[in-house]
C-alpha cells in the first residue's frame, strides 16, 4: 500500500495505490474515487463492534476496498478542510481521536477505546481508537487545519479538541484545565489531556467543535 497526499494542507486528498488483492479499510463516506476493478465491501464487524464505533463518534460502518485482477487505487478525503498524516505502525501502536481516523492497511487492528466518563460528557468527543499491528502497516489520519507533530519528553498538556493521535507509549488522562471548575470555566479551556512519558503527539491547529460553535452561534436559530 502506497499513500500519496495531494492538495495539502487545506484540502488534502489521499491516493492509496494497492497491489492486486491488497485491501484498505476506510471510514464510511471517505471514498472520493476509485479504479473500476476495486471492489468495495461494507462491514460493521458485527452489531456490537459497530455500535461501539458509533459511540466512538464515527460512522457505524467501515468499508474495505480491494482491487481484483490487477493493481488499483482509491482516493480518500476527510469531511473538514485540513491536512492529513500517515502514521507508520510501530510495535506500540497509536491512540487516535475517533474523528481523525480515515483509513488503515489490512493488518492494522483498530478498536474503540473509552476516553473515560469525562470524555463522554464533555461533548468534545474524546473517544479514542487504538490501532495496533503485528506487522508493518499504516494508518491515515486527517485533521481540521494544519497537523503538527509534537514530541513529548516528560509531561505535556493538550486541549482535547486539538488532538489527532499519539504514540501508545504515552500515558494519558483527561482532566479539566484549570485549578478548579470555576477557573476552568472562566479560562475557557475546558478539558485537556495530560500526557506523560516519551512519545509523539499529532495535533490539529483548529478545533472543529469550537469552530462549529463559534460560527453556529452567529446563525439565526432554527
Amino acid at each position, binding site marked *: 500500500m502506497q499513500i500519496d497526499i495531494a492538495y495539502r494542507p487545506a484540502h488534502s486528498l489521499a491516493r492509496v495505490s494497492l497491489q492486486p488483492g491488497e485491501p484498505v479499510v476506510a471510514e464510511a463516506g471517505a471514498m472520493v474515487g476509485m479504479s473500476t476493478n476495486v471492489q468495495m465491501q461494507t462491514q460493521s464487524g458485527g452489531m456490537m463492534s459497530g455500535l461501539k464505533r458509533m459511540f466512538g463518534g464515527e460512522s457505524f460502518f467501515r468499508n474495505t476496498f480491494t482491487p481484483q485482477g490487477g493493481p488499483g487505487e482509491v482516493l480518500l478525503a476527510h469531511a473538514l478542510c485540513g491536512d492529513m498524516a500517515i502514521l507508520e505502525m510501530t510495535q506500540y501502536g497509536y491512540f487516535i481521536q475517533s474523528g481523525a481516523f480515515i483509513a488503515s492497511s489490512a493488518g492494522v487492528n483498530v478498536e474503540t477505546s473509552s476516553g473515560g466518563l469525562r470524555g463522554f460528557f464533555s461533548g468534545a468527543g474524546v473517544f479514542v481508537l487504538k490501532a495496533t499491528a503485528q506487522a508493518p502497516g499504516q494508518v491515515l489520519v486527517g485533521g481540521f487545519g494544519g497537523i503538527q507533530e509534537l514530541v513529548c519528553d516528560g509531561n505535556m498538556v493538550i486541549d482535547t479538541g486539538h488532538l489527532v493521535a499519539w504514540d501508545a507509549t504515552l500515558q494519558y488522562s483527561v482532566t479539566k484545565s484549570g485549578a478548579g471548575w470555576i477557573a476552568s470555566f472562566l479560562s475557557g*479551556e475546558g478539558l485537556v489531556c495530560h500526557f506523560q512519558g516519551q512519545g509523539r503527539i499529532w495535533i490539529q491547529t483548529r478545533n472543529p467543535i469550537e469552530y462549529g460553535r463559534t460560527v453556529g452561534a452567529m446563525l439565526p436559530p432554527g
Partner: protein
Amino acid sequence: MQQQPYAQPGQHYGGPPAPMVQQQYAAPASVAHEITHGPSFAMLRVDLQPGQVFVAEAGSMVARHHHVGMEVKMNAGRAAGFFAMLKALIIAVLRKFVGGETFFVNHFSAPQPGSVWVAPSLTGQIHHRRLNGESLVLSTGAYVGHVGDVDLKLKFGGLKALLAKEGAFFLVATGHGDLWFNSYGGIHAVDVNGSYIVDNGHLVGYEGNLDFNIRTAGGGLMGMVASGEGLVCEFRGQGRVYIQSRNLSALVQWLTGMMH
C-alpha cells in the same frame, strides 16, 4: 518496524527553533516565537524563559508543557481601579454568555524554559507586531496574546462602532512588547498617508494615532443598498491599518441564506 527516534532532552519541541524576529531598532529583543500553518490555519508557539509571562485570550490554548503554569485573570487593564474592574467584570460576564471575546485572559509563565501553543477558533492568519510605545486598536476577536509591558484597555467604540458592526468595544493595546493578533482570512497591512477607506467587516486593527469615521461607500442611500458595500470606515492621518481578506459577517449572511 522501526520506532522513530525521539527527541533528546534539550532538543527543541515541535519543529525547528524559532528564528528571532529581526529588529530594525534598538529595542529589547522579541520573545522567541514561531507562527506556523499560516495563512489559513495559523498557530502560534511562544517559547518562554523564566520570568517571562505570555498573556493570551482565554480558550485559545492548544498545548503547553506541563511545567508551564496557567492562571486565569480578568482583562481589566494594568492598575485598574475598582470601577474599571467592575466594568470589566460586567462586560466579561455579558460576553461570556452573549458570545465574542471573553475578556478573560490566561497568564502563562514557566519556572524553566517551556512552550505554549495557541490558535484562534476561526480559519485565518496570526500576525506579530512589536510595540514600541505606540498603541494599536484591535476590533472584536482580533486579540491573540502579548508578552511584555503592554496594557490592554477596553474602549467603547460609541455609536459609530455599533453602526460599523465591529462590535461595541475595541481593545486598545499600548506599551512595549510583543503583540499577536489574528484575522479571518489573510492579513493585509495598508500604510495610510492622508486617507483610506476600509469596509467595516474587514477591519482588524489600526494604529491609535489614526482617526476614523463611518460613512457610506458612496452613491447615497441607493448606493448603500445596491452596491453591497454597506458602511465603510474612512481613516485619516498617518499610520497603519490592518485588513483581513475575508469578512465574517459575509460568511454568516451567506450561511443564513442557505438555511431556509
